[in-house]
């Protein structure tokens, strides 16, 4: 019964993701795209919980797919000139996108491999893991903030 509820929840999340993505692409809204991607991630989590498996080996594929959706969505809404004015540039970008997806799958696989490694457990290790995650997020936040703050200087 609970499994059925989770599947319905996954369906709702999938519908929400689709709606957000469609709205984001139509209105060129980055926030809507973000919500759509988050909903897609949530749908995966719910589906995974519904299946109740120990470790999902397909997670790298899903991660690559999520990155692909995100990249294509942001490519669609970015301020730009005619994307296909120079086909060679568009081809290079598509190749680069493919590389990013392969890289994303590799990173996700690496995370899974590390998670599956039997290095014992315990509170200390868990605390280190939490601290590492928080540290990584903080570092990311600092990097983003420094860049987003922006500064202007004369180039020539």
């Amino acid at each position, binding site marked *: 019964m609970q499994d059925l509820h989770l599947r319905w929840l996954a369906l709702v999340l999938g519908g929400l993701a689709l709606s957000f993505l469609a709205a984001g692409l139509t209105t060129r809204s*980055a*926030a809507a*795209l*973000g919500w759509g*991607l*988050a909903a897609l*991630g949530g749908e*995966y*989590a719910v589906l*995974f919980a519904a299946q109740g498996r120990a*470790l999902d080996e397909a*997670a790298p594929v*899903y*991660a*690559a797919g*999520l*990155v692909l959706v*995100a990249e294509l969505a*942001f*490519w669609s*809404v*970015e301020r730009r*000139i*005619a*994307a296909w*004015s*120079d086909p*060679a*540039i568009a081809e*290079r*970008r598509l190749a*680069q996108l493919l590389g*990013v997806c392969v*890289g*994303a799958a590799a*990173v*996700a*696989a690496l*995370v*899974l491999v*590390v*998670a*599956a490694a039997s290095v014992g457990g315990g509170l200390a290790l868990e605390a280190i893991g*939490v601290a590492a*995650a928080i540290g*990584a*997020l903080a*570092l*990311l*936040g600092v*990097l*983003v903030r420094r*860049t*987003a703050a*922006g*500064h*202007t*200087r004369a*180039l*020539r």
Partner: protein
Amino acid sequence: MSHAATAKLRVYPVLAAAGLVAALALGRPELAALAAPFAVLVAVGLALAKPPELRLYVELDRERQLEGRDVVVDLELAARRPVERLELLFRMPPGLETGAPNPRLIRLAFDEQPEIQLPIRCLHWGAYELGEVLWRSRDVFGLVAFEGLIREPHALKVYPRGETLQRLLRPLETQAFSGNQVARQRGEGIEFADLRPFTSGDRVRRVNWRATARRGVPWVNEAHPERNSDVVIFLDTFAEARRADLGTLDLGVRAAAALATHYLEEKDRVGLVAFGGVLNWLTVSSGMTQLYRIVDSLLDAEILLSYAWKDLNVIPPRTLPPRALVIALSPLLDERAVSALIDLRGRGFDLAVIELSPFPFVDEGETETERLAYRLWRLRREALRSRYAALGVPIVEWREGVPMEAVVEEVRAFRRHARVVRA
């Protein structure tokens, strides 16, 4: 140069954070596996994001061009590091347009200096400044957008297109210097004028031997000398009627440039008076240098709104030399210009008015009142024309599309048939 975070940079870290927090909360590494690529993408992208440090060299294939023709702009780009996607917008002032893609997207490889040729069509006369390029590039993952403006200013002068003129309007009186115009006076020249008895001091080569043989006493030929003339182009810049792409001032500038070109080719001396909110003048002179002076001065002609009353007294006297032909180019919309022209005639100048017709630029109106006002306005203009004609001033209406030749011929016809009025 400025840089700004793209939408991706605002969303990806949030997704990564949400995934990692969820992974920690639920104890599921799969969620961390979903979030990790976004975190890595942001970290690597920001580490690699560097401004492209562009250099741009702009070159025009010519600095002067005629209206309606093309100028080619060469853009040479260089950057210290490769730029995957560079968007370039060559800023185009109104009056110029390009058929080439603008903005355009290019890729700058390492140590590459691509050249871009941009053909530009000169739609409207004027003095322009070209060489502003707006550029935008993104880092390899599109997280940070760099934008900048590069200025490499180059002046471009677009001269008004010429009008074909077979015959010019000739002044009633010529000047003292030699030129291409047959003077009314008699003297040394080629054109035969008359016969007269030989007097002391006459050259033998002037003796008409046939007439001498017939009369038994020496008779000599008299000739009309070839002289130059002074022409002053009087451009009214007080007011104009215009629509988006064309106005009476444009017509006036084109006509003035064409007239100056043709008169100077005939070795006449030409001057210019731009009479309006700002007074601009050039004293009469001849030669190619004067042509460039006049055309450059015409490029600066513009309508500046002014309520100050101006009359001929503000014009330096030597700008209007005696016995000069004054060709006025005016839409006759401003009372000051109308009065100044009548005053010119009153001072004895040989005056011809080319009326730059404002009618094609004015709508008749939709309501009955508007149409009535329009008809009254037209009647007033007719009355004004009659006033000029009564003073012996030829006045001819000129519209776009009508050849200048026809206008000049109409003035010639007026002068041929009208009674000359001495003021």
